[in-house]
């Protein structure tokens, strides 16, 4: 469970003061999919950064599984993030010069996973995004959709509890975007991980259990899917089939 309590973040000083997050509070249950929706500059990315401990708001608490990560030391936050969280970004941030295998290996190395345990995890993750045949290819040779699938593999390889996705389909066309969305949601449902998506795309947002609308650093509204749907999400769902590879590469 993630509890965001009265988080406030300001930039600048005195006259130039700019409130990016203004007294934000909400609760995300485990295994939920959350959309943080807002225009650019609304503070939605800042909120994501605060929730993941990348940023340090001056006020408020972010309590994940009973620990206020904002009160942790930098080292502990780093360790906590490496053990429980992962990220997907709009512009992928895969390492173009590295092989797919090495890209996916990075979170495991950072988390200090022993060498002999890595191969299986990496191959499982690549298999889940249907890139196992590309494991030796360099990331730069992949298409945009493949790169984002690689980023998904990197995000799931260390079995995180929370995945933060910042406009995950922003740089993709609708077909490949949908493939990535399906991947994320199916992983979210199957493994019960919490998925937090920052987006301004209403279609993507509509697929999430909880929609948090942000405007000018404040929560405008929080909308839940109907109770029935929410209960349904707890039940195991068969894996969402990937669209055909050929289609992805369109």
């Amino acid at each position, binding site marked *: 469970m993630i509890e965001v309590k009265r988080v406030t973040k300001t930039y600048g000083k005195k006259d130039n003061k700019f409130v990016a997050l203004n007294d934000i509070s909400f609760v995300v249950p485990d295994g939920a999919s959350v959309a943080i929706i807002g225009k650019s500059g609304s503070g939605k990315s800042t909120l994501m*950064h605060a929730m993941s401990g990348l940023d340090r708001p001056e006020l408020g608490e972010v309590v994940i599984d009973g620990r206020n990560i904002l009160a942790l030391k930098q080292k502990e936050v*780093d360790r906590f993030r490496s053990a429980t969280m992962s990220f997907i970004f709009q512009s992928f941030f895969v390492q173009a010069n590295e092989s797919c295998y090495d890209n996916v290996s990075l979170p495991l190395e950072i988390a200090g996973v022993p060498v002999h345990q890595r191969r299986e995890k990496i191959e499982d993750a690549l298999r889940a995004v249907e890139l196992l045949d590309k494991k030796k290819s360099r990331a730069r040779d992949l298409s945009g959709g493949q790169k984002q699938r690689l980023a998904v593999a990197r995000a799931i390889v260390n079995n995180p509890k929370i995945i933060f996705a910042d406009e995950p389909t922003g740089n993709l066309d609708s077909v490949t975007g949908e493939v990535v969305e399906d991947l994320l949601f199916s992983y979210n449902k199957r493994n019960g991980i919490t998925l937090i998506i920052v987006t301004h795309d209403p279609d993507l947002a509509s697929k999430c259990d909880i929609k948090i609308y942000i405007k000018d650093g404040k929560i405008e509204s929080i909308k839940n899917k109907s109770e029935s749907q929410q209960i349904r999400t707890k039940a195991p769902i068969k894996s969402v089939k990937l669209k055909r590879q050929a289609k992805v590469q369109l």
Partner: protein
Amino acid sequence: MKIRDITIRAGRSLRQAKARTILTSLAIGVGAFTIVLSLAAGSGGRAYTADIISSNTNVKELYVQPKPDVNNDPTKPKKYSTDPTMSYGGGFSVKLLKDSDIDKLNKIKNVESVTPVYLVTVKYVTRQGQDKYQASVATYNESVKVDYVAGSADGIDKKGVIIPDSYVEALGFKSPEGAIGKDVQIAAEKGSSSLVAPEIKPFNFTVVGVYEQSALAVSGSDSLRLSKDDTKALYDFTTEGTAQHGTYVGATVIAKDVADVNDIKADIGKAGYEAQTAEDLMSFIFQFINVLQGILIGFGALAVLTSVFGIINTQYISVLERTQQIGLMKALGMSRRDVGRLFKLEAAWIGFLGGALGAGAAILVGVIGNPIIAKALKLGDINLLIFEPLTVIGVIVGLVLVAVAAGILPARKAAKLDPIEALRTE
């Protein structure tokens, strides 16, 4: 993150910028090359010197000279003295030893013998039915290493002579062996004879040995070797009646025992002379080699210093280029310390690569150059460049440390990078 993984990642990102990595490490390589080569030349030089000295000097031997003038300023006039001196150009002169000085030296405790340095000028050497050839004469010294082609020093006391192999053919011998036992004439000019009608007298000597000019011999190479007594006789003949007679540039003192050498040196010093032992001579030359080596190493250090700025520059650029990557790694929970380590290890790789390249090139130069140098300087089997594995490893390790030190600033920049800012960079 494990050091192993960081090291592999560091190596990988260097491979991805091959040209830059190699160029940066070449700078440090130049330093490594210079340092390794000068260290090798230094140890080679010392070994060479030790070899020369041990094969040319006797450890029981001391070389004695008069104390130089305190006032040795060539720009000022010097007081007249009746003591004999030898003048060089430019107002420099050295004092000479007299027979009375030799007697004084002889009286010093534990001195076995004193031999003045006889400077003998002879006119020519010849053999019946052969042409006359210019020659120089030196005293046979049993402590000087001599490689005999034929014969030996046996019988040198009985009007014997040892000739260099270059004279064999000139004197009409068919082979070095053929020269043994044959007579040669060495002619000298009587010192007191008049300039207009010089009296030149040939002396008969029997060839007892033929020596090969040794690469290690510093004195008397290419000269005819006579016994001490014969040299003295020639010396007396050529200088008697001149001012030169009874004066010597130096003298060789032989101690009764090696243990007495230092006491004798002190006594000679008290008596007003300067004495050099074989050890002194060696340490003097070593000092000279060390200074030369130090200068060369200084140049190497300068190259290393320059390369330090190269590394700092390269690593700064690398940090800027990889802002996103650093941001991602930090977002994924990589600690500041590990990010810093990643960049320091990259610098270490550059240092290692440069050190290994430079040292390798230096060793290659040594392997190729040693025979060439030995041939050019006629050193025989001597290597003038000696690479000691520990020294080479030490240099490489040192350069790795220097490179890591150079990488500290860029590494700190990388470690301090704000991941949010870094990931915003498009």
